């Protein structure tokens, strides 16, 4: 990872390629690198779809090594959805492969002057850029098959579907998994639209002939990785719950806690929750010959994913994640897992963020476009997005645009980005994260649910404002560091509870780079990332007034606990005072 690949898509004649040493970005990876580069090189006030924006794709600092769980990829740009900085994070194979190919980052710059659609192929021999307009409006699944035919069976793809080509603000970037299915997505913030604006349909990677990245101190590194894996295996969340039931194990938990956003955030419990729960889903998957346990990349030991087959036993999609089951399910009062899985498949194929899509449908239901609970109607709305009809373009630009189009007051967004699957009135710590993270409403930016609901990393009352700002602050700092190292965020459950597992991660990092990294260094890394992101957002015109939840969370009490969001604005404004 000693070079940065820059491709100028707007160069006269054809795109030009240059490889440079990391320079100012030496020692950075993942989110630390994407956010440093965007904040330094992209004018904050530029249009997100203009030639001035850049798309940065960076593996984490430990990606491409044997370190377990190190396969997370960061994709950064100015977000067309939020107007602020964006780091969207994904699993799949690409981070490991890109790191082994030696790249600290790929940067797409400029903008083509015509509508030519490009592919970028990278292997041990270098970079080849091709153009192929027959790929236009192809879904991610068909696209990957075509790329396999052209570049070989062992490739990894980073690609966009029709939503990205149409530059929708909810467009995602798909990453293939171990079976080369485009199931892992950098979903949030419209990163797919920025890739579409650069005219790039797919980046195809092949690391044949490349080796694992080698640590400075191999013996210490191996020992730390062993301790690391043992720590992940012994924690009940990472060793048992996630492998057995996947992320959707949370449907029953959050519903039982009264914080499951139902009917576009009108209620905290969904009567149909048991029908779409992780327990039901795992049973269904196994009965249909799918898998209830599956890793999204090589080197994953948690293996929270799975495969979801249709009623005839044919592959439909990956194990649908909790957030997706919620956004298309309880949020829309839909209790049919097959319908939800179909929408997940369509979202992945069109290349669209499942959270934003489900939230937009919920808002459209509130606006009377279709009825809550109408599963077939909801599937049809997703298809409108794939077709790019005027209605589809409204929905595909997210919940905020949809709310305006249909005159809806209850629009659950912060900085125009839809809230995920925890109501901030019943889980107030995550409400603080939604309001203040530079990313727009994002549960992964500081997962206070762990401490509010599960009692992991301490215990803070979810229904009261006390202690939530401090909790969210500490988690946001730690998360920014984890996103930079390239670790899957689910390791947080183990490192919050087990000091020896946290130490093992630090030891691995130290042994790999031949440095003496400490817990304090982790904190400083996280703070530096957030500082860059906040500075970019301030320059882009996002102020304290944007660090707020929509008013209805303060004014409407959420049943069953009948509680409103109680953290005061002045306290939210202290989050980044450290």
């Amino acid at each position: 990872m000693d070079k940065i690949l820059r491709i100028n898509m707007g160069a006269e004649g054809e795109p030009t390629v240059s490889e440079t040493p990391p320079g100012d970005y030496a020692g950075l990876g993942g989110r630390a690198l994407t956010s440093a580069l965007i904040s330094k090189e992209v004018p904050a006030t530029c249009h997100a779809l203009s030639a001035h924006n850049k798309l940065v794709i960076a593996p984490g600092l430990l990606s491409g090594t044997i370190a377990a769980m190190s396969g997370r990829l960061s994709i950064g740009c100015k977000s067309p959805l939020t107007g602020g900085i964006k780091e969207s994070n994904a699993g799949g194979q690409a981070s490991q492969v890109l790191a082994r190919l030696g790249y600290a980052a790929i940067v797409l710059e400029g903008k083509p002057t015509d509508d030519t659609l490009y592919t970028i192929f990278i292997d041990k021999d270098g970079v080849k850029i091709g153009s192929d307009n027959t790929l236009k409006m192809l879904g991610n699944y068909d696209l990957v098959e075509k790329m396999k035919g052209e570049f070989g069976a062992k490739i990894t793809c980073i690609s966009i579907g029709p939503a990205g080509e149409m530059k929708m603000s909810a467009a995602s970037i798909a990453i293939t998994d171990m079976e080369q299915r485009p199931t892992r997505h950098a979903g949030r913030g419209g990163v797919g639209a920025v890739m579409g604006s650069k005219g790039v349909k797919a980046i195809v990677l092949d690391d044949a002939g490349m080796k694992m990245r080698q640590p400075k101190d191999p013996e210490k590194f191996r020992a730390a990785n062993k301790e690391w894996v043992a720590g992940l295996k012994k924690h009940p969340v990472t060793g048992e719950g996630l492998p057995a039931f996947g992320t959707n194990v949370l449907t029953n938990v959050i519903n039982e806690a009264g914080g499951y956003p139902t009917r576009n955030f009108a209620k905290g419990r969904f009567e149909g929750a048991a029908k779409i729960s992780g327990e039901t889903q795992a049973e269904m998957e196994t009965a249909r010959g799918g898998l209830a346990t599956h890793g999204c990349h090589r080197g994953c030991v948690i293996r929270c994913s799975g495969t979801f087959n249709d009623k005839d036993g044919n592959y439909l999609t990956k194990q649908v994640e909790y957030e997706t089951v919620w956004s298309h399910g309880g949020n829309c009062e839909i209790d049919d897992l097959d319908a939800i899985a179909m929408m997940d498949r369509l979202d992945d194929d069109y290349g669209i963020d499942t959270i934003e899509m489900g939230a937009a449908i919920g808002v459209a239901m509130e606006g009377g476009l279709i009825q809550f609970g109408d599963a077939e109607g909801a599937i049809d709305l997703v298809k409108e997005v794939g077709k790019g009809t005027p209605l589809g373009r409204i929905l595909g630009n997210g919940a905020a645009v949809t709310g305006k189009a249909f005159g809806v007051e209850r629009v659950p967004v912060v900085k125009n980005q839809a809230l995920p699957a925890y109501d901030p009135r019943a889980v107030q710590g995550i409400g603080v994260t939604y309001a203040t993270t530079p990313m727009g409403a994002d549960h992964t930016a500081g997962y206070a649910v762990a401490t509010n609901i599960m009692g992991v990393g301490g215990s803070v009352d979810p229904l009261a404002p006390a202690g939530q700002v401090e909790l969210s602050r500490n988690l946001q700092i730690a998360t920014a560091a984890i996103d930079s190292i390239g670790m899957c965020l689910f390791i947080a459950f183990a490192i919050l509870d087990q000091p020896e597992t946290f130490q093992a991660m630090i030891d691995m990092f130290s042994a790999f780079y031949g440095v003496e990294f400490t817990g304090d260094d982790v904190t400083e890394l996280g703070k530096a990332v957030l500082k860059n992101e906040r500075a970019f957002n301030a320059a882009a015109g996002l102020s304290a007034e944007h660090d707020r939840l929509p008013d209805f969370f303060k004014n409407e009490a959420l049943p069953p606990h009948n509680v409103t969001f109680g953290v005061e604005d002045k306290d939210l404004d202290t989050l980044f005072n450290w």
Partner: protein
Amino acid sequence: MKIELVLFASFTDYMPAHAGGNPWLMEVEAGKTVGFLIEQLHLPADRPKMIFVNGLRVKEDALLSEGDRAGIFPLVAGG
């Protein structure tokens, strides 16, 4: 007094057959705690648990009242 009870995730194996995987009513003497339910159901004592009574997270020493709904999970998370 009657308590509505439901178990989740791997604890569903400890639900009585008559419950059919659904919440069921259990007759409990007044003054009993959640810990008593855990013993009665033979839930593994050494497994960390998340216990909700009427949607509020409680510890095993929480006292039960007529009509309470108790939901018990092993420690699980996701997101």
